[in-house]
């Protein structure tokens, strides 16, 4: 009599999070916005926040995220996400509010609003997606553009004399007492994606615990405007961008808040 084969079944171990609906993303192939949107969706699911979360969509490539997030979303003017998120959270502190912004929104036109929301320690979770340029409008220089980087408005490569230096917003905001948690992560391979997800969840958890302002900066690839294929673009983040914008927790004052 031969032994019975072990009982087995195929289980789903990875699929679309419930806080994302069926809409296809409008991002370019290989764009990290897609990974980051999904991680936020997974975090919302795992923390069971779907019915109390209000997100914001910036002006930029991710302007349409209200189409695929199955939650309430507000779409503010360019740069103003931090101020609008402040307004939403102050009006209704029971909501979990996330601010989602790109380079221009967070570090250029929105600098004033970004700095002050951090300085006030607003109890919100801010996602800053840094791909070193302005994607949607055609690849122009951003405050985060690397020295020597060619963009559509720095065809010779960014030089510091005319155009200044890459702006390290996370380090800058870390000098303020207001913020509770500031971290920089990346999503260019599986280990980093997993770390980024943990940082995102931490940012939400701190808001739920009323601990104040969390900023999760996420280095991203822009294959289209970098002129690289998605795999090369991921390598570029690891080999070039990360050298200027180092990864890791910059500040975590959660114990004191």
């Amino acid at each position, binding site marked *: 009599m031969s032994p019975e084969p072990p009982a087995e079944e*195929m*289980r789903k*171990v990875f699929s679309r999070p419930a806080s994302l609906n069926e809409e296809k*993303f409008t991002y370019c*192939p290989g764009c990290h916005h*897609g990974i980051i949107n*999904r991680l936020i969706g997974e975090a919302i699911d795992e923390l069971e926040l779907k019915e109390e979360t209000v997100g914001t969509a910036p002006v930029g490539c991710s302007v349409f995220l209200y189409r695929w997030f199955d939650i309430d979303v507000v779409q503010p003017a360019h740069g103003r996400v931090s101020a609008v998120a402040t307004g939403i959270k102050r009006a209704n502190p029971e909501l979990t509010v996330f601010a989602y912004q790109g380079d221009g929104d967070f570090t250029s036109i929105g600098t004033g609003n970004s700095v002050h929301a951090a300085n006030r320690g607003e109890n919100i979770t801010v996602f800053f997606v840094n791909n070193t340029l302005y994607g949607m409008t055609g690849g122009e220089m951003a405050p985060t553009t690397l020295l020597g980087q060619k963009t559509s408005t720095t065809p010779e490569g960014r030089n510091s004399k005319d155009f200044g230096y890459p702006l390290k917003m996370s380090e800058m905001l870390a000098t303020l007492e207001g913020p509770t948690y500031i971290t920089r992560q990346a999503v260019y391979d599986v280990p980093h994606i997993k770390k980024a997800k943990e940082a995102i969840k931490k940012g939400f958890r701190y808001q739920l615990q009323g601990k104040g302002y969390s900023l999760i900066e996420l280095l991203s690839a822009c294959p289209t405007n970098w002129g690289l294929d998605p*795999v090369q673009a*991921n390598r570029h983040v690891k080999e070039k961008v990360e050298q200027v914008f180092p990864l890791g927790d910059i500040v975590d004052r959660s114990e004191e808040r």
Partner: protein
Amino acid sequence: MPEGRVEVDSERCKGCGLCIEACPQEVLGFAGKFNSDGYEYVEMNDAPACIGCGFCGISCPDVALTVYKKYRTD
């Protein structure tokens, strides 16, 4: 029963190739076929090699992949 399986939503896939890069088992490859948006999507080339680790799904920017893994139920 295989150790793992990947389902590709060919209409969501944009052929970015990040899943192919991420897969430790070289399971995935370009299908040689195009979806209605004109992207060449991926498919499982070497299905028996799949171990259901989910790295492909984790790397996919378009939530185009669903991953299954074999579990013992006893």
